[in-house]
């Protein structure tokens, strides 16, 4: 999806700019391409478009 993460098959080990490494052994790994993730280098959905508010926000808890 445009503006979304780059999907690569796991496990992955990424070397970051500062020389540290991040790893994930998930079957598929979403790498942040927008640089806004607070879990960089992994996508945390911060790339999403933001909109004006609805009344109550319905959200599942976790899945």
């Amino acid at each position, binding site marked *: 999806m445009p503006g979304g993460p780059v999907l690569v098959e796991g496990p992955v080990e990424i070397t970051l700019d500062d020389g540290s490494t991040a790893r994930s052994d998930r*079957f598929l790994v979403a790498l942040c391409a927008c640089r806004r993730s607070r879990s960089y280098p*992994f*996508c945390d*959905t911060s790339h999403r478009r933001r909109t004006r508010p609805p*009344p109550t926000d319905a*959200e599942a*808890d*976790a899945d």
Partner: protein
Amino acid sequence: MNGPKLPPARGPLSAGVISALTSGPPPPQVAGADPLGEDLQLALYLCYELHYRGFDGVSDEWEWDPGLLRTRRDLERLFLAALRGGVPGGDDVTGVLEELLAEPIEAVGISHHLRDDGELWQLREYVVHRSIYHLKEAEPHAWVIPRLQGRAKAALVAVEFDEFGGGRAERMHSQLFADLMDELALDTSYGAYLEVAPAEMLAVVNMMSLFGLHRRLRGALVGHFAAAEITTAPSARRMAQGLTRLGVDPLFYTEHVEADAVHEQVLRRDVIGDLLRREPGLAADVVLGVQATDWLEGRFADLVLGRWRSGRSSLLVPMSDSR
């Protein structure tokens, strides 16, 4: 057409079964119970639970008792009609998913409240509610596996593998949730809080069982799963912040921030994408699953936030501070 066609009968017994399967039973008379009320939701929950772990002191035979299954069907018909009646419907899958993907700037949800100024007793109540689902996290979705094919099946199973800890029992999401309950001094035994969970919570889990147990609702199950995965990464981030603020280990939620960012992509691209390529006629059911999830989660959030706003417990029976 997904299944093999019915074979010819070989005598009176098989003929009777085939004619029942082809001509269908007459529609039952359903009573006028409130489809979203406490009574019906608990009755339905009890029927469904027989397919998971059952109940202490209740014979396992009840799982396939024809009389009880008939009752369950009557309850389900009322519930499903209420779900269909409560949502706008349509068959624009891309449109309804896009709506969920837009992050509202100033939304007021439970996770927003718990991030900013929720108190510990409120977090404990919330975890008690959610234990109805999280102690069997991802299990209702496993029912759909034999009803999918090809890439949709493989992709959904990959997500399930992740939900079940990628082969490591201690990393199963249900176990991570039990660990969180333990830290909050809550009872981690399965079903411990069923008696205090209100209809609004039971309805969310009953919806999953309903969609999971009925092959004809496979599109709705997939739609529900996608809706849940899409909305959870941002809310899990807020929950993690709230737990950290309250001095509670946020592992269950931090795991879900990254996991669900991936699961969302897989559900949309591989599961829904492939399912609708194979069975385009399921689009309206996928939309039903997405919208019903949003609707029932909204009712649950309204109940909980409403009670908390007036300083009251959101459970049927308030908890004491200990277990």
